[in-house]
């Protein structure tokens, strides 16, 4: 039986009707992984034994007629930045190469409550810094649509394992586009929830004022099912908001009542013509179905990328200070040949040898921007520009319900194409970064194909409109 065409709900139905067993489903996906991993390289670790044990436990529950969780038996991949107890967790970095998670992240606890099967940890750019997954210290993940292309990043393994039918869904994290851009490149659905919607307890931090965990799946309905499972109030993340208390969710979206904005700043210079054509095509279809398309402008969005590369690197330079070779992970102290005079040497040699180039670059940039004499010119300035960007979105959402843009200015690029030019790499996040700065939710979904490569549509909504976005995405899926 080919399970790859089934939605999460259909799988659950099949399990309950005993059309197939959880272990059969699990074995099917483990077999998929065995066949496809040599080409795709989406996973850093595959937990065959753990997955099979979990599948057997769910089958036992079914046999006893016990109630099943909403994601019962669903095989999934978890980004390597998210802790799963007992599995290695390196965040794509050599500095954490032998680290084993000693507890579950809250989102993983929530998934386990719903009886998921965790197949393994997915590849990513080191500490989520990158847009192609090429900055992983371990392997290069390939785009399932074309193995010469990158899957996007930083959640490239999470996108590729879903697109390559190696898992039903995955979790990613998104600081400047790391869920949406790879979802776009790999033709899957990825949701970057409102900042604070999903607890980040157990996520290895990159830039705490921007980081958010979210689901990636083959279709919008599956994405929503996973999102429902991972939200919920968690005292362990002070920014976490109880989504069930959010009242502004529209119960039923009608296309004819919709006001949609397509900001000109997202359709200008740098956008590839085929991508533009596809996204404008979706907007025209919505217009034909009765939606009002309204001209809006996000004038400060132009500065979002520069603003982001100050704020994110400043926060990263502080967050990554914890990797010092003292409590866990790789340490120079274990290197017999290393001459270490004092603690400073342990720190700097551990970090100098353990971090990759891009991570070092960002730590350096952040340290520079926060160093004495530069704070006002960089960090404070960027905070103020962030404020302007937030205002732009606020003004826009007083006129429209949703904003539609391309997720990325171009489809998946070639492996090695941008690896030597950090700025060129950064530009692939130009349409996703403003969303993180504003803290609003956004989703990327497949909108069409450009010569065999998927093109993603980005739907942006106001704060806590996550479920409305999912509703609109379902409508667009059927257009």
């Amino acid at each position: 039986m080919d399970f790859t065409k089934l939605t999460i709900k259909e799988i659950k139905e099949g399990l309950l009707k005993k059309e197939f067993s959880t272990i059969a489903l699990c074995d099917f996906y483990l077999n998929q992984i065995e066949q496809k991993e040599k080409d795709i390289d989406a996973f850093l670790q595959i937990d065959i034994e753990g997955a099979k044990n979990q599948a057997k436990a769910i089958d036992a529950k079914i046999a006893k007629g016990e109630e099943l969780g909403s994601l019962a038996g669903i095989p999934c991949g978890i980004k390597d930045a998210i802790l799963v107890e007992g599995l290695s967790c390196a965040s794509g970095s050599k500095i954490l190469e032998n680290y084993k998670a000693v507890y579950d992240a809250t989102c993983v606890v929530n998934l386990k409550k719903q009886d998921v099967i965790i197949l393994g940890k997915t590849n990513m750019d080191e500490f989520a810094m990158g847009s192609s997954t090429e900055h992983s210290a371990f392997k290069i993940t390939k785009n399932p649509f074309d193995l010469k292309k990158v899957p996007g990043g930083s959640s490239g393994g999470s996108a590729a394992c879903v697109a390559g039918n190696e898992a039903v869904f995955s979790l990613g994290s998104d600081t400047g586009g790391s869920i949406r851009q790879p979802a776009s490149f790999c033709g899957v659905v990825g949701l970057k929830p409102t900042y604070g919607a999903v607890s980040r307890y157990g996520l290895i931090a990159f830039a705490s004022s921007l980081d958010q965990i979210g689901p990636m799946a083959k279709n919008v309905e599956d994405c929503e099912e996973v999102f429902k499972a991972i939200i919920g109030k968690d005292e362990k993340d002070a920014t976490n908001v109880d989504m069930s208390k959010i009242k502004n969710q529209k119960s039923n979206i009608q296309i004819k009542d919709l006001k949609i904005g397509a900001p000109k700043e997202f359709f200008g210079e740098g956008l590839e013509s085929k991508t533009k054509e596809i996204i404008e095509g979706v907007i025209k279809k919505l217009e034909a179905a009765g939606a009002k398309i309204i001209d809006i402008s996000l004038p400060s969005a132009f500065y979002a990328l520069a603003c982001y590369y100050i704020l994110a690197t400043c926060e990263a330079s502080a967050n990554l200070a914890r990797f010092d070779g003292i409590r866990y992970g790789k340490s120079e102290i274990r290197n017999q040949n290393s001459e270490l005079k004092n603690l400073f040497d342990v720190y700097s040699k551990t970090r100098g040898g353990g971090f990759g180039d891009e991570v070092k670059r960002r730590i350096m940039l952040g340290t520079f921007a926060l160093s004495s004499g530069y704070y006002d010119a960089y960090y404070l300035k960027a905070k103020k520009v962030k404020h302007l960007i937030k205002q732009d979105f606020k003004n826009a959402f007083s006129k429209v319900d949703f904003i539609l843009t391309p997720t990325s200015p171009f489809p998946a690029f070639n492996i090695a194409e941008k690896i030597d030019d950090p700025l060129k790499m950064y530009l692939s996040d130009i349409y996703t970064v403003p969303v993180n700065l504003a803290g609003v939710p956004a989703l990327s979904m497949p909108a069409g194909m450009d010569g065999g490569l998927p093109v993603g549509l980005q739907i942006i909504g106001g704060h806590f409109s996550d479920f409305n976005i999912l509703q609109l995405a379902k409508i667009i899926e059927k257009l």
Partner: protein
Amino acid sequence: MISKEEVIKIANLARLDLSETEIEKMQKDLAGILDYIGQLNKVNVSEIELESEENVPENILRDDVAVSQTLETVEKMLSQAPNREGNHIKVKEILT
């Protein structure tokens, strides 16, 4: 622009031991990125008061209480330490 001396100073602050080649490349890369970031100078932010940000809940605090852990958890944590002596983590001297 950013000087080589400045790169070395920042690397020290960041506790990053960089090789000579890395320092040179870093100088070039940072210069390029800082040049790009310089576009923020075109934005007028003189009117912006950050304190006026809306919807920002203040000080979500919890009681500062120690949560006791099982010995098993303590062992799991300690077993990850690269340099351990009994139930302590050993470090190099700070001042030399």
